[in-house]
């Protein structure tokens, strides 16, 4: 899961980024409204949600939100605002924001509201994804196969979640990198392969069942 955090206060941005990374999100911070708009227009598929501070240099947060909607970007947007007055809240919701939090907010609440926004429609509870005999519980962050719990690292969990949300689809390495690592990631491009190898090993399963298969020349696919 990847978040675009549009926040110009470096300390607050850093604080939110660290907190979200502890929960397994990849976070890109863009401190400027105009630049954020460009980023989300060009890379809309990389992000699952946008957290937008209303107080921004160069372009007001509300204007960013309106522009995004005008460009048909339907990503969920959670606004961070300093204004608690009702008219202000009504205004931001009418401008296209899906939810808001008034500063100072509880990080626990931010996290819960993000999860609520990321929930697919028609679901009442934090999701449990299933593929074959693999169960992934987004609420408890637990993964099990045929009833046995499998301990996964944050990245492995994120990877498996991504595959399960795209089960039976071929996913390429670039999509995975864009979706699960922030744009500052400077590392070896085989990082994805390494994590997949570890994930395969942990998923185990009947020998050679290859539930997570390599599609040569293209990427990977989780068969369900």
């Amino acid at each position, binding site marked *: 899961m990847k978040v675009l955090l549009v926040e110009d*206060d470096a300390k*607050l941005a850093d604080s939110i980024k660290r*907190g979200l990374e*502890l929960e397994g999100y990849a976070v890109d911070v863009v401190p400027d409204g105009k630049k954020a708009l460009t980023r989300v227009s060009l890379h809309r598929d990389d992000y699952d949600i946008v957290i937008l501070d209303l107080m921004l240099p160069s372009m007001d947060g509300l204007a960013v939100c309106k522009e995004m909607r005008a460009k048909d970007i339907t990503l969920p947007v959670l606004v961070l605002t300093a204004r608690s007055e009702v008219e202000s809240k009504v205004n931001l919701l009418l401008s296209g924001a899906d939810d808001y939090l008034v500063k*100072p907010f509880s990080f626990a609440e931010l996290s819960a509201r993000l999860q609520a926004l990321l929930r697919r429609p028609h679901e009442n509870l934090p999701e449990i994804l299933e593929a074959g005999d693999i169960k992934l519980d987004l609420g408890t962050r637990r993964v099990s196969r045929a009833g046995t719990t499998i301990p996964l690292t944050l990245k492995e969990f994120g990877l498996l979640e991504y595959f399960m949300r795209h089960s039976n689809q071929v996913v390429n390495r670039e999509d995975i990198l864009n979706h699960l690592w922030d744009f500052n990631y400077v590392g070896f491009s085989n990082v994805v392969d390494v994590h997949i190898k570890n994930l395969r090993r942990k998923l185990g399963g009947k020998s050679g069942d290859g539930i997570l298969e390599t599609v040569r020349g293209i990427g990977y696919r989780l068969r369900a």
Partner: protein
Amino acid sequence: MLQKQFIENAAHDLRTPLSVIRMNAEMALLSLHEGSELRSTFLGIIEEVDRMSKMLSELVSQAAFSDTQRDQV
């Protein structure tokens, strides 16, 4: 009118550092075990941040109110 604007801006600006303090305290709480003595320290910080937050809201309403009072004179 100018005073109301000034107070509003100041109050809104103060909310960002308060957010940072609150979040840092929440983060610290996460890494403390259940029985730690420091828990109440950080919970105390969070309480005071929330208190300040309420004060700021009241300040803004008060500024708006006295503004309308002045206009009526």
